[in-house]
């Protein structure tokens, strides 16, 4: 196990390094920030001073070396636009995104697993088919458009929910959160539902397929033959076995929920790091783009690592293979 963790962590570092190189080279080759950031009316001397101040006059590799040295020390450069450290800007907005993503995942799990189980137990019933049809719709609905329609119905027509922002936040251990106030909930519920739809459809399909397969297994037949109650067969024997792949998928999909929050945050003007990324791309604020990408790649690698480790804890067969190989 420790060998496995070390090997995986080293792999993660290599991927992180390669990504930083790719992203840096790419982003710094686009456009000319000098034209965007410095007043076109500025005197040539003034321009040069600004270029030197931003470090844009040095060769690309030197800019990267400076960047990398800073990155190791936790300094990912300063935003051209906000003139604040890029990492700080992102970390300030991270709690909002994480809160939104967690709420969305919670909705998807709380609805997806029971609905998928129901559809798997009754694949040919009207309700089972309706759930499946709904899940196809969930896959097909363009997220951003659903967001607009939610705003149209609940904010414009019914006027019951606010259409944008996060509402008042409460500090918990220095981190601002919305979910502790009623007003915060009213702001959170629409974006979270919107973000949850796609994962909800995925979880329904996954749970249904798992249930249908598990029902045919010998251990289920055996449990029934023992005369166990239906509830016990389903909740203990079926559900526990299909939970292994589901937990993995939930873990892996959490990263993709954070990435997809970019779209939802833009629709609902949610002050998270995804919205910051879109604004930064539009303004060519390169340090923030690079910092965002590195932070999210690091987040992804961490999530993948945790899921892999969790998987081997949940499923003893994986550990056996690891030991043999």
């Amino acid at each position: 196990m420790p060998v496995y963790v070390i090997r995986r962590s080293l792999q993660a570092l290599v991927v992180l390094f390669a990504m930083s190189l790719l992203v840096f080279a790419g982003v710094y080759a686009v456009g000319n920030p000098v034209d965007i950031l410095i007043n076109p009316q500025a005197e040539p001397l003034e321009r040069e001073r600004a270029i030197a101040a931003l470090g844009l006059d040095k060769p690309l590799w030197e800019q990267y070396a400076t960047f990398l040295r800073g990155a190791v020390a936790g300094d990912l450069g300063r935003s051209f636009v906000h003139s604040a450290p890029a990492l700080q800007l992102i970390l300030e907005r991270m709690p909002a995104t994480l809160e939104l993503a967690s709420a969305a995942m919670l909705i998807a799990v709380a609805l997806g697993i029971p609905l998928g189980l129901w559809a798997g137990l009754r694949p040919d019933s009207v309700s089972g088919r309706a759930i499946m049809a709904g899940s196809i719709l969930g896959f097909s609905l363009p997220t951003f458009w659903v967001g607009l329609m939610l705003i149209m119905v609940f904010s414009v027509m019914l006027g019951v929910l606010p259409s944008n922002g996060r509402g008042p936040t409460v500090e918990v251990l220095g981190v601002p959160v919305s979910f502790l106030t009623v007003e915060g909930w009213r702001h959170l519920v629409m974006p979270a539902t919107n973000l949850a739809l796609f994962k909800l459809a995925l979880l329904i399909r996954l749970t249904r397929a798992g249930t249908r397969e598990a029902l045919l297994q010998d251990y289920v037949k055996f449990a029934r033959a023992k005369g166990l109650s239906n509830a016990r067969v389903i909740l203990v024997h079926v559900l526990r076995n299909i939970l292994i792949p589901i937990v993995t998928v939930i873990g892996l999909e959490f990263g993709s929920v954070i990435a997809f929050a970019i779209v939802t945050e833009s629709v609902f003007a949610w002050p998270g790091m995804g919205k910051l990324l879109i604004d930064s791309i539009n303004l060519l604020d390169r340090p923030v783009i690079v910092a965002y990408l590195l932070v999210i790649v690091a987040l992804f690698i961490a999530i993948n690592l945790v899921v892999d480790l969790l998987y081997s804890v949940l499923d003893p067969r994986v550990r056996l293979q690891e030991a043999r190989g």
Partner: protein
Amino acid sequence: MRAPAGASDVRAAQAPARRVLSDFVADPVAVVGLALLCTVVLLALFAPLLSPQDPYDLAQLDIMDARLPPGSPTPSGGTFWLGTDDQGRDMLSAIFYGLRISLAVGAASTVLALLIGLTTGLFAAYAGGRVESAVMRIVDIQLSFPAILIALILIAVLGQGTGKVIAALVTIQWAYYARTVRSAALVEKRKEYVEAARCLALPPLRIVFRHLLPNCLPPLIVVATVQVAAAIALEATLSFLGLGLPITEPSLGLLIANGYQYLLSGKYWISFFPGLALLLTIVSINLCADRLRDVLNPRLQR
């Protein structure tokens, strides 16, 4: 796939296609999906003939007609069935033209990605060894990141424009094809007909494209169908975020983005109808893909 035998070559080659078609239409939901898809494609193809006005001919637009609700009369005695946008443009016409652009971008990127992914995947499987593991390593790493994130990185790196959006979509999608075709080819290349072709000392190119490829097609077709829908949705999302196609190529995503600011004042139609068109397009493709997956699945074949 059974190996064709001698004289019945031609029949055996035709039969699978006919069987797939007759299986496909056995499901009424799939038929509805296919009919819907055909309608959408025809509307997109013949948009200039079907549209009540040319939405991008400024001479035909009148700012006095701006933001009229659906069903309003036009100055020339017709009807704006789906209302007008902030430029006085007929939404129905704008949607027909938008469909054209959305479908064209989706199809172009799918075809390019298919060609690249298919060639890479086939050769990786055929070559084996280091080449294969290197290619599959790249595919695995790429597929572990969500498409939207890769698309945004690429747009941030490449800049904006139609060609660049297509390039981003191709970069995202080739990996799906490479993985699918490789896993199919790995199974196929151990079969006897490939060994026979090798014994005949046929050139590798011929073996890969004439013998391996046709037998790897079924799963590839399913993935390609799903990916067209995904490409269209992703392009719409990028355009909605203002990072996709330029204003000169108003796809459905851009039309929806245009209506965003008017939504809060209750003028829903500018965003609603293009989104509905997008939804119907994606649903129809996904319904067809769902059925194709069942029909082409060798495990379910009788």
